[in-house]
Structure formats: C-alpha cells, structure tokens
C-alpha cells in the first residue's frame, strides 16, 4: 500500500506523518510512506487545506490532523476490503 502525506511541510503535515508512521507500525502492514510537497500535485488530489492523506491514490482526509487511532482505522479499512 502506498500512503502519501500531502503538505508543504508545516507543522500539521509533520504531525500527520507521525500519526501515519505510528499507525503503520501498529498495524504491521507493508506500506510505503511518501511526502508530497509540490503544490500543483497537492491540489490535483482535490486538497485545498493541508494536510491531506492519500492511500493508494484515494484521498481520505484533508484539512485536519486525524489521531493515530483514526489513521489506523482508515488504513485497516483499506487493507481488508
């Protein structure tokens, strides 16, 4: 699974990345975490307020930092269709 954290590098984006790493570790899934800092690409995913969370090219969260537990639920839902 490919997880992308969208944001130019402000504090919210770093918090989201931390939550994502924690969630991935907790679930023990095989995931690549990428950071997207390029504005046209960020907006291309439909994100207008950062940070954004994209899993397998699907936008799941934008404009707020979900807790690690919430990210875990979101990722778990993607893993078990």
């Amino acid at each position, binding site marked *: 699974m490919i997880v992308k954290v969208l944001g*130019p590098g*402000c*504090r*919210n984006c770093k918090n989201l990345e931390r939550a994502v790493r924690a969630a991935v570790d907790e679930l023990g899934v095989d995931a690549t975490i990428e950071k997207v800092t390029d*504005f*046209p690409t*960020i*907006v*291309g*995913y*439909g*994100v*207008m*307020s*950062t940070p*954004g969370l994209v899993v397998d090219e*699907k*936008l*799941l*969260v*934008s*404009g*707020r*930092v979900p*807790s690690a*537990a919430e990210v875990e639920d979101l990722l778990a839902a993607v893993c078990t269709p």
Partner: protein
Amino acid sequence: MSLATRMPTSTRGRWITLSVAAAAWAGAYWVNEHLWDVVFYDLLGMAPTDRLTQSLHFFFYDTVKIALLLSGIIFVITILRSYMSIERTRALLGGRREGVGNVMAAGLGVVTPFCSCSAVPAFIGFVAAGVPLGVTMSFLIASPLVNEIAIGLLLTLFGWQVTLLYVAAGLSIAVVGGWVIGRLHLERWVEGFVFETRLGGQVVDSTTGLTFNQRVQIGAEEVVTILRKIWPYLLVGIGVGAVIHGWAPEDLFTEYAGPGNAFGVLVAVLVGIPLYSNAAGILPLVEALYDKGLPIGTLLAFMMAVVALSLPEMILLRRVLKPQLLAVFIAVVGTSIVAVGYLFNVLLS
C-alpha cells in the same frame, strides 16, 4: 489518550463537562480582575499611582486576561467554524459573477476555517476550479484581515461599536480590493501553472462527518496550537503596551500620530506593514496607545496593516502571484487601509 475519547458520549454528560469548563473559565477571569490589585497594592504595598506599579499591573493583568480571552474565543470559534469548510466555500463561490461573488467571498473569508499555510493550495484550488481571480482575492484579503480572534478581543476590549466598524471596514476593503484586481484583468500576472493544474475528481470535505466530541477535540487542539505559536508576540505586545502605559508621556504619540497630524494614518500603516504579528499580539499595544489618546481610526489602520500585510504571507503568495500582481495586491490593500483609517478618524472625531 485524546480528549475526544475521554469526553462523555451522552448529550447530558457532554453538556455537564462543557458547563464545568465554562464555569472554571469565568471563575479564573473573575479572580484575575481582582488578584493583581491585591498582590501589588495590599501584599507588596506599592502605590497605585507609581509608574512601575502601573506598568507591572498592566503587564500581569493583561497577560492573564488576554490568555483567558484567547483560549475561550478560539475554542468556541473553532468549534463553530468546524461546521464550515473551504471545500463548501469553493462550491458556493463557483460560477458566481464578480460583484456578488466579491461580497460573498469576503463574507465567507471571515467564517471559513483557514490557516495561512493553506493560502497557496486554496488559491490554486479556487482559480483552477473557475472562481474568478478578483473573487479569489476578496477571499484571500478578508481571511486574515477580518480575523475572528480580533473580533472577539475587540468586542471585549473596545465594545461593539469599534468591533462593528472593524468588521465593516475589513469587509469593504476585501470586496473593493478584490473587485479592483478583478477589473484590472491581471490573470497574466498569475503563475502559469495555476491554470494548468488539473483538479482531481474526488473532493473530501475536511469537516463533514465529525462527531461533536471530535469538534471539541479540534477546538482544544487549536487553542494549544495558536497559543503556542503566538505567545512570544503576545508577551512582546503586552510588554511594549505596559511600558507605554506606565512611562510614555501623554503627548509623545499624539504629537506624531495624533488627531492633529494629517499624516498620522499614513505613518501608522507604513510602520505597521513591516511589523509581523497577529491581531492577538497587537491588540494590547493598540489598547495602551488608545489610552494615550491616539485616534481609533489610526489604530485600526495600524492593526490592519500589521495583520493583513506581512512578509511571510507575501512570500507564500509569491508562489502563485508574479511580482507585479503581488505589488498591485499590496498597493490596493495598503491604500484601502489608509483610506479606512482617515474615514474613521473623520467619522469619530
């Protein structure tokens, strides 16, 4: 453990928790009203008329008062604003003509939750979705200029008349400024990639589907985030305010920027543009200067210049605006602020 999971889930438990928090807040506010009189005059035996006493009293009293006011205001406003989102704002603005669009954009700029770090994606998202440039600019001007935190603080420090003036002036500047930029047809001065950006098919609304407890959590987090970010500005602002309150002679500022000086507003705006603070940090200073006899129009213009035109925001906007358009933006907003300052000074003198 997050706050959202610790909050009671029943409606009744939730209201009890929030009521207890509100009562604690009001109690702390009441204590602060009297605490420093007791500390300085009774315990330390300092004379209330002494300059040092006045400065120290102002500093401690104002620091606690502003911190309490900010916490309360940010918490409530963030929860209210969590029912609005930038995605909904864009949907409302899409296909609007200029004029009506500018007015709507300015109003929405005030109520939409928005952080300056999102200025660039929001700009691209608006323009690429076909919102006219001028309408987008109205939104981008109103958003920092008519700051909801400033509204709350002005209301408690200066009363509703000044607050109303501030909101009306800020909205007018945003509407007129955006409209002028739209009429000038300056699309060629927007960086080309903005128009080439292809929008994804899916839009996730940032705030729908949250539970009330999650919104409370977001509100509490926002209080911590903002206070952590602005406390240095706040202390500097209150510190300078305290020195002015105790030590500055009555006629020091009125001589240079008082009602008698025709260039007062202009000077205030020129001083304000390079200063970077936020409304919360600048208001204690404004309060102290007001006590020293500076006219309110000059002070509002000063505050708006500090808040709306700042270097970090300009650097961000430079990513999407070419230098020419950025210059037009600064000129239009700066001129409007000066005009508003003079207008208020005339109306209120």
